[in-house]
């Protein structure tokens, strides 16, 4: 395949960036999107040009490190991570625009890399349970009803990639927040800190400069882990309960 790529280049957080155009040739349909960028970077390296900075780690769809805005879709046209997107999804001769996540809370570090530590700080505010876990307990020591266990598990699959923020017209991180709140709130261990967790995590979310949710649903449509909009309702419900409890 031959493709025209328009890629956001920005040398550092403070400089202005712009889209630069590159031609790539002989791309295999079986390459992942990131491998296609690797091929381009090999060439740029050999030509003595600065390679394009982009994030990736596991390249198997589980770490959440990769994440690019591809032709206006977070992680590209398929509902998967950028590393799991393959070039067969595109047509020969196509022009592909590649941009970093755009969010004030995720400043661009360089080219396509953004700083997502805002998510870490939200987690620091309560995305955990303060229990002494000790040695592995017996599986039946604390029974969890199947439906709740399933929901906790499904929402725990959030990999913190930030596609929800990137695709949201309000730049809100409500889907991410909702996934964490639901995951911990469904489990018995998560109950003790339930009220403080939601209040502190939402406060940090707002403080970081993420927008408020208006239930548009772009996030759930972009989420590679298919986290549903339900979790935002759960988040709102937990916050409303915390208001009632006076937190």
């Amino acid at each position, binding site marked *: 395949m031959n493709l025209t790529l328009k890629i956001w280049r920005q040398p550092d957080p403070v400089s202005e960036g712009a889209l630069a155009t590159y031609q790539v040739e002989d791309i295999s349909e079986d390459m992942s999107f990131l491998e296609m960028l690797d091929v381009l970077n090999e060439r740029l390296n050999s030509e003595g040009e600065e390679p394009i900075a982009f994030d990736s780690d596991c390249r198997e769809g589980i770490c959440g490190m990769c994440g690019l805005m591809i032709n206006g879709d977070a992680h590209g046209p398929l509902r998967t991570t950028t590393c799991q997107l393959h070039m067969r999804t595109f047509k020969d001769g196509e022009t592909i625009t590649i941009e970093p996540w755009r969010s004030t809370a995720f400043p661009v570090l360089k080219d396509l890399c953004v700083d997502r530590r805002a998510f870490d700080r939200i987690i*620091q505010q309560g995305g955990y349970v303060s229990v002494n876990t000790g040695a592995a307990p017996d599986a039946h020591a604390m029974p969890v009803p199947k439906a709740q266990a399933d929901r906790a598990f499904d929402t725990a699959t959030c990999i913190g990639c930030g596609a929800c923020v990137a695709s949201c017209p309000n730049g809100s991180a409500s889907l991410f927040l909702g996934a964490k709140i639901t995951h911990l709130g469904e489990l018995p261990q998560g109950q003790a800190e339930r009220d403080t967790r939601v209040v502190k995590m939402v406060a940090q979310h707002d403080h970081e400069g993420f*927008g408020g949710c208006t239930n548009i649903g772009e996030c759930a449509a972009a989420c590679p882990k298919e986290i549903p909009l339900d979790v935002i309702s759960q988040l709102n419900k937990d916050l409303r309960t915390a208001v009632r409890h006076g937190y």
Partner: protein
Amino acid sequence: MRHAGTLTFVASQTELAKPLVEQVRSTRSTIALKIGMAASGLIFVLFVLLHMYGNLKAFGGEHAFNTYAHHLRTFGEPMLPYGGLLWIVRAVLIVSLVVHVATAATLWKRARRARRVRYAVKKNTGATWASLLMRWGGVTLLLFIIWHLLNFTIGKINVTGGPTDNPYRLLVDTFDTWWLTLIYLVAMAMLGAHLHHGVWSACQTLGLTSNARARRRAKAFGLVLALVITIGFSLVPIFTVFGVISY
């Protein structure tokens, strides 16, 4: 690893880390703003339904309509003074309007700040057109409400030069004027769009849609309510402009 080195350097060169917020209150969050918006919106919905019921009295003719208008003022007498109930309703509506518009403006401003750099290419895959129209649609509704109050309540403007102290004749004269009917119908379509998204969004904000089934139901309910209100309000102007409602 030249590029990894550059990244670490860049990250350490910029003061991106924001501190963890300490003073947190549930009532100071974006979600609390949204709850205010949802509650005021639902008060509007109740009012609008009653208002629609009153308007449909126009099909009963001049006497039925004007008697209804009069009864609105004598309702609750002698426990309430003349027009007492009307003023209570007005006070509630004015407070709701202030809350609704103030929270909308605050969240709009936040959302704009949350994404300062726009995407060169951005697709919407999960959004309905109604959800993307909420803010500008809301501005249209605000302008309409101002005009509407000038027309029928505060100013009592009769563009045909007819009587202004007879509610029924003011209504007929107004909707006999084709462009006033047009403005009114456009506003009702806007209201329909606002409610199509707003009703389900309010359910979500209040935490009532924490599973897929409840979400589907809330969306269906929103659509039905939007259609009932839009069509219900449009009947009187349409039947007036075609001469069925007349004097």
